[in-house]
């Protein structure tokens, strides 16, 4: 099991950042690994699930089911891939009119060969880069969509 945390100050209000996080349909706006999201409810809540096709290490594009494990409006969201055990856990809090964000990416392998392979592929450095990229991309997406602030 490995995980990394990334913290960043994002120059946007919490509500704007949150708007990108709590709407799976918008994930492709800022998460370059997201190819497509289907089956997401209009408003997600704890226990909601949806299907997401992503780019994985070594060029694979698996389509897997994600579940919302934690949800605290404007503050916390945790999504987990039901196939690989990969998760992303976001916290947001306001900091001087901007957003202090902390994201933890990790893999908690579940049984099965595929999960073990996924876990092996998600090395710490891979996760670290993914986390950094996710934050950078969020920033960029927010700059592109000033209206959402």
């Amino acid at each position, binding site marked *: 099991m490995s995980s*990394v*945390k990334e*913290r*960043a*100050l994002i120059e946007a209000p919490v509500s704007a950042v949150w708007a990108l996080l709590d709407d799976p349909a918008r994930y492709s706006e800022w998460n370059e690994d997201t190819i497509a999201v289907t089956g997401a409810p209009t408003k997600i809540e704890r226990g909601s699930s949806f299907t997401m096709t992503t780019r994985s290490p070594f060029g694979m594009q698996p389509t897997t089911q994600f579940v919302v494990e934690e949800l605290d409006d404007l503050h916390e969201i945790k999504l987990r891939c039901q196939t690989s055990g990969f998760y992303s856990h976001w*916290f947001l*809090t*306001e*900091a*001087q009119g901007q957003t*202090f964000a*902390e994201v933890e990416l990790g893999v908690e392998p579940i049984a099965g060969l595929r999960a073990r392979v996924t876990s092996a592929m998600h090395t710490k*450095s891979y996760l*670290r880069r993914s986390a*950094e990229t996710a934050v950078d991309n969020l920033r960029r997406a927010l700059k592109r969509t000033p209206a959402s602030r």
Partner: protein
Amino acid sequence: MSCGAELAPICPSCGAENPSGAKFCIECGSPLTDAGAGPEPRPEIAAEAPPEERRQATVLFADLSGYTAAAERMDPEAVKALVDRTLRRLGEEIERFGGTIDKFIGDNVMGVFGAPIAHEDDPERAVRAGLAMQEAMEGANRQGQARHGVSFSLRVGINSGEVMAGAVGDRYTVMGDVVNVAARLQAAARPETVTVGESTYRATREVISYERLEPLQLKGKEEPVPAWEATRALTEPRRGISRARTPLIGREEEASLLLSLVERIGHEGRPHLVTVIGQAGVGKSRLLRELVSTLIDSDDPPTIRSGQCPPYGSGIAYWALAEVLNQEFEILDTDSPELAWEKLRAGVTGLLEEFGDREAGERNARLLAIPLGLEPAEEEPTQVDADPQRMREALFSAARAVVEAIARRRPLVLAIDDIHWADEGMLDLIDHLTRWVRAPLLLVCLTRDELLERRPGWGGGRRNATTISLEPLTADETRELVAALMPKRPGADEDGGPIEGGDVVPQVAERSGGNPLFAEEMVNRLLEEDTVEAEALPTTVQALLAARLDSLDRLERRLLQSASVVGQTFWEGALAATAAEEGLDLGRTLAALEEKDLLAPSEGSRLTGEREYAFKHVLIRDVAYSMLPKSVRCRKHVEVGDFIRDRAGERSDALIGLIAEHFARAAALGSEAGLDSDALAQLQMQALESLEAAGDAAAALYSNAEAFDRYTAALELSESLDDADVARIGEKQGDVALRIGRVDAAVSVWERCLKYHRAQEDLARVADLHRKIGAALWHKGERRASIDNYQRGIDLLKDGPPCIELVRLYEEAASLYMHTGDNMLAIYASEKALRLAERLDEARAASRAHGIFGRVFGRIGDSEKARENLERSVALARDSDRAEAVRALLTLGYHLEVSEADYAGATEAYREALEIAHEVGDLPSQVELHASLGQLAVESAEWEEVERAAEASARLAEREGLHGKLCFPDVMRGVLSWRDGDWEDAAKHFRRAHELGEQVGRSEVAFTALHWLAITLRDSGDLAAAEAELTKALDICERAGLIAQSVEAISARAVVLALSGRGEQARAAAEEAERLSSRLHYPVGEAATAEAAGATAADPAESAARIDEARRRWLELGRPLDASRCLVVRGRLLLADDPEAASDLLAAAADEYESLGAPALAARVRERVEA
């Protein structure tokens, strides 16, 4: 009507019921029957009666027994006359030794030594009197047996201590437990013995021989009482080991002068008188001992004889001469009179015959037998001249002849101690010997100033006389002496090194006022009582000073006592009431006391327009004060408090501490003296108000220890406090307790306050106390309990209106989360605190919130925002609160150091913070700041500063019990051991620092400790362990978001992997470090990643280039040790492929380490070169 049964006697003094037949009260020692059987009751009190005083006194009880047989055989009138005569005779011994007969009751006599007049040796006088009484009893029994066939037994009991002296009814007497115990000791004594209590034994054990008794079970005493039986008086006092070891300090010139005078008489063959003059205890006898021991050790020692003039008793004229003769002719106390005479006769005759004066020998021996109390054999009666003058001349002539003869054999040093107590005859004899002896004689006379009152011209105007005046030692000399007297710690060498109880040295030195005897006695008391409390006065010193006070005029003494209530310094105006009461001329009396060297005018005055004086010796003040009854002290303290308040006027705030001290003393004394409850309540209320005000004033000036003491004193006035007072003052006490590092005390007192406010349902106070307790627990490293307290406080207030208590709770919680690396929570709480602070216009709280923002932003690599917030934090703190500025500057300094590598800026911030922390008494921050400055000094290899900082930080943390903060100095100590090449010790310190850092939630310190541990393991050659520790360090970075530090740790890991030959992993790590560094633009990271890149590059040229780049960057940053390490890394990597180049690089690194003051590191590198 009565039943005829014997009534239990009731004490007329204290009302206690006593056993039938008792003569003295078992409670207070007062007589239970009227004087009647005894010969002379004590005279009634005269109009000029001695005042009521507390005094150190020795009480003697002597009881005759065994006259029942006489009563059966003799007429009652004859029995009465016999007892009367015997008691009179015994009473004479009391008076002979300077005591007073307090009373006779039946067959019992009570004597007092030390009241109304004290002598410096009252306990000794009392025991000598007791022994003399037993001797006198033997004589009386011989007569009684011869005349009536009867004899008595005598039991004597003696005890010393504090008594209350003064009038009881129309009689002056002493009262107290001391009296009662003396009576009980007498009752328990064996017939024909003198039994003494512990305090008497301690005061006299050097001059009296004792046998220890089994502790006595005395009536009225729960515990057995230690007791000793006096067996005999010693001619020469026993000197304890410490006395013999006392070094001679500050008297070198005088000792040299004395030696030169000994040489001079040897050359000139004539007598010389040297008088050493000085106050009691100033070192006259010590100087003499030094002279004697130097002379004894010399190649051709002179003859040395000595005598002492005793302070008591009559009929002991020429005592010192007798002592000299006893020594010369080896006459012992235990010799029979016949043998003693024979020794004297043979000695004098032989001595004078040697110089051709056969006839004079016998005659002179007979004359000299007189001062020795010897009677020649009856067939050779002494021709005593009826004319005293002629008799004296004959005696002087005999003494001169003998002294001259001794001195003719070889130069004679004749030392006479305490000549201020000498009888007139002895002084004349000294003068006679100085004038008329024709042989090399040095008369060394030791005396106090009093001699000059009797003989103003002593030794003056004569060519063969010298006076050496001994002044008190200087402060430095006294400290040196006290330090030398204190025992050395085990393992310390004889000549120096640490001493036990070193902390009390300055205190003892100051209190002794340069008087070596006082210093020595104080040290002896500390050692005997195994205490570090230097305030209490040894009984010996007390007695000496009490005697000095008693020698003063009654009104002078009264004035001095009143002045003692004011303090070591006092104002003339404060004595006006006493002067008026006593009808004395204040100015003249003060002048007289100044003349007597007891007082001195002060340079300035704390009260405008009031002339100020000071006691020349603090102990004189203490003794004068101790003699006043508590009720009188109480009244006078109130008067002094009122006086200061009136005179201070508008400045009374500045003097509130002094005022509070007087009112508090008055209240305490009033309680002890049994003041009536209304008056006491009024005093206590006055004391409470002034103590609280004094505490507030001290706290405002950051005099935290003083403030703590004031609040503590206020809380001790529990009788006049209600719960609200206790809670209010207690909370303030806790505040200052935390500031001075007394965490447990603070938590304890706040928890009590919490209960009160909870009962009052005062939510704001309850919440605020939770915050305070949380902060205190955080200081102790109890993170969980600390968070719980903050949370409880927040829960109480978060749904209510904005308030400062809530702001503080958020900011404390934010601070805790920031330190533990919970950055998200730290930001969350800071945001809450900042918003509330801005709404409430609370600059201090806003400062703290900005500080936390800055620190967290710095951690995540946003230096610009970090600096912006930290500078704002400092600015707000400077405007609002000095104490807060410490925290703000510390945070700014840390950011500059770690995130920006701006070491000059960091040093400046830390130094300013340290200065303010000193000013405001913030000890926990001082621990951290010393260590932070030490860490900066490590970067520049300024080892002296590192050592100083480590020592200061550790000492403070240990002294104040700030154990959690020991992680800071531990890192420093580890670095110093690393520098010295002591890998094991270094690792031990780093591991402990890491453990403590984790325990108290200081993630940055825990990281630093692990990083240094890895460096140490790497340098010791254990690369696997080094890598493991770096992995752990990176876990901390991950957990706490220490991105800047993580770059350095990943780079270090890359180097370790490269050195281990794990090239691929090393390169991956180096790339990771470089990638992170490029995101952060972090100067230290850039140097570290260049080093990692150089260490892992496959191409030798690229490797060399990157290592050179790293060296340049490290040097630009001011980190020469890291630059030198680059050479080591490169050298180690080249060892296999290019040993010559590797050797050159390592040799260069060794030279650099050498020049950086790290020779052990250099040696380690050279070992590698050689290997």
